[in-house]
């Protein structure tokens, strides 16, 4: 396989553009509704914060593991003492 970065970006550009527009339009929709109504509940504010953190990860320039970092962002942290907690 011999695919360089220019080629991958070229073939992905419109797809990524469309996905980013979906994200932007969704956030606009949420913000418009928040202005019209009482804003976001505490739980939903946390989730909204997760989305902002995810966008920061996507925009970061370090490493090629953004997908794995997003997965961890959206995961509950690992509790290594699960055996003693569950008495198993």
């Amino acid at each position, binding site marked *: *396989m*011999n*695919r360089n970065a220019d080629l991958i970006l070229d073939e992905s550009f419109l797809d990524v553009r469309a996905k980013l527009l979906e994200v932007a339009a969704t956030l606009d929709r949420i913000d418009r509704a928040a202005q019209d109504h009482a804003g976001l509940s505490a739980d939903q504010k946390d989730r909204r914060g997760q989305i902002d953190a995810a966008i920061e990860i996507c925009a970061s320039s370090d490493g090629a*593991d953004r*997908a*794995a970092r997003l*997965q*961890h962002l*959206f*995961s*509950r*942290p*690992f*509790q290594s003492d*699960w*055996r003693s907690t*569950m*008495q*198993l």
Partner: protein
Amino acid sequence: MDYIDPHIHMVSRTTDDYATLARMGCVAMSEPAFWAGYDRGSADGFRDYFRQLTDVEPKRAAQYGIQHFTWLCINAKEAENVSLSRDVIAMIPEFLDSPNVLGIGEIGLNKNTKNEATIFLEHLDLAAKFEQLILIHTPHLADKYQGTRMILDMLCDDSRLDPSRVLVDHVEEHTIGEVLDRGFWAGMTLYPVTKCTPERAADMIERYDGERLLANSAGDWGPSKPTAVPDLIFEMRRRGHRESLIRKVVYENPIEFFSQSKNFRFQPRGAGEVQSDS
């Protein structure tokens, strides 16, 4: 290209889907036992389900030239009912000699609870005692990382279990490395929204080189696409991957893993054909 879907729930699909899969190149499939969309009320309900998996579905698949294999268990969602789970586990050996049974699965965790872990351990004991292959379900979304780590810990704690006889399914970017590093097989589920797209699966194949990696559709009664494996084949071809690498992931790897079961008597397409000059 001939391919094998190692994880698909055909009891939820129409016969038209069998026809479509055959036309797309599917020559064999394995169907793990799973949640029906509601909690079953008795072990007899599971007995009927296991008859469907071991008797009805192989015949339905054979009409389209597809070989059907299966796995038996009570799934993690219903494992919250420990008493029912133990009744089902006690009944499973009745079916282990059925010709299409490859092992115990899909067992695992759903919400990572104590009851789920208890029944998971009892399934592992059953698999060890009857020398069965194991197929693992890992949890969804926010619970996946914790659940996968718990599952790997429990598997590695049991010295009777050989990691090369265990397939851990539904891996994603944050879990695939540890599954492979610990010597297990890893399955990528191509599933809309909650699991993995063909494009991301192709990325993982590029990063991990296809060794001990499988891809499945997990087609079931929910939003899912039974022809997702051909979508992955198409994506890999589009990227210019070697046919040999594609074939390894979608055909040779399932055969290598399943061949560890004495019940995997797979007949490749064209096997036994007599050469003719006509």
